[in-house]
């Protein structure tokens, strides 16, 4: 079972905490909304930290069903 990072820009409130936690993976567009700089990034502690602190629930980890 592998986990995958899910990002939902429609939910993002632009708090930017993800960018603070892991700037290599997360960025913000002109409107402050989250963007992802790398496809399927390895889930390091900084990403887990970003997911845990994201105040809007825009970031989540999902089991992608693969073995």
């Amino acid at each position, binding site marked *: 079972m592998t986990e995958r990072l899910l990002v939902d820009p429609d939910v993002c409130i632009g708090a930017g905490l993800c960018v603070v936690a892991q700037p290599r993976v997360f960025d913000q567009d002109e*409107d402050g909304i989250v963007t992802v700089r790398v496809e399927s990034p390895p889930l390091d502690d900084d990403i887990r930290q970003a997911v845990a*602190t994201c105040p809007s629930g825009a970031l989540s980890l999902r089991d992608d069903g693969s073995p």
Partner: protein
Amino acid sequence: MRAAEPVSGTTDQAVPEVPVYLRRDEFTPSPDLGRLREAGRVERVTTPFGATAWLLTRHDDVRAVLADSTRFSNAVRDVPQPPELDDLTEDERAPLRFGNLLGLDPPEHTRLRRTLTGEFTVRRMRALEPRVRRIVDEQLEKMARKGPPLDLVTEYGLLVPSLVICELLGVPASDRAAFNAQTIRLIDVSVPIRERLRVGRELRDYMSDLAERARLAPGDDIIGMLIREHGRDLTHPELAGLANFLLLAGHETTANMLSLGTLALLRHPAQLARMRDDPAAVAPGVEELLRWLSVVQAPVARQVREDTEFGGVRIPAGDLVLLSLPAANRDPAAVARPDELDIGRGAVGHLAFGHGVHHCIGAPLARMELNVGLPALLQRFPGLRIEPDGVGFRPSHVFYGLSQLVVSW
């Protein structure tokens, strides 16, 4: 924002008492709050406006309520207004609501909030940092020229955030002194509420003029940006209201953090030295100060939209819940040795900026002001010390702070 400030405490006493969630002994929140939290109890408190609210204190509960804007609404209905506001006409009342992000739920909230998020990105904050540094340095220079003893609350804490907001909103330099005097009056709790509402009206009129002028020649500031990018989605009152709201939300909160943060460090000299001398200690130190001080004692009350339960108590739809941020931020279930200030403890996920869709939009700015303003002060005046009787804690209020901090160096 509106009527939801409970007055009753947990202990029965004849004297009218500060409500339990606003009570502190210097830095320490009321032990009654800790007792409620440890017992997992949810207590009913009565607001001065005749409404009642349930007080939540556990980190998990507070976070869960803030995360769920569907079941816990900011658009409070059918709750008594503060008596001071009872005789306001609808015309007087309406402007209080314009731009008030904290009184809206999604999707209205989302629409208004998204017009602002682009102004507070991490990237824009980095671009703003040199301007904040300049404001801080100029203020420190003025203090040095004036010489000790002086009151840090009025000479530094209140001024820096106000000047930063002027910069952000594009208030012209010639207006700043008058603007500062007004904003400081607006947030002074010892000024009668009627007078504060009058000052608030003047400031709103000022913002409205500022927005009017900006429509003709939009500048490089937030108002200019909002006009360029959202000029057609935002009505004029909304624009002026948003500017005003940013002022209210970003001034006193940051001011109190600067002053209280300085005092907290003066009381913990070893940690002060680290904040002053080790640049790597600053950002985590600011987070710990945010947690430990929790200057916003309670976010605005939320209204329960469907029956729910906390601590074995059934809370019916329509009731209000109040959330204690100091209690949540000192919950031993979330933080080890919660009552100790420890700037080296690392990320703990505090709730000082709230959580969920209303999470403080100014958090990146506030963090930057503190990351710049605290070490700069300590470096400029390495011999900083408190004058005898120099410390005054403010009577309890939703924004906890100091009335004075007289220092020498």
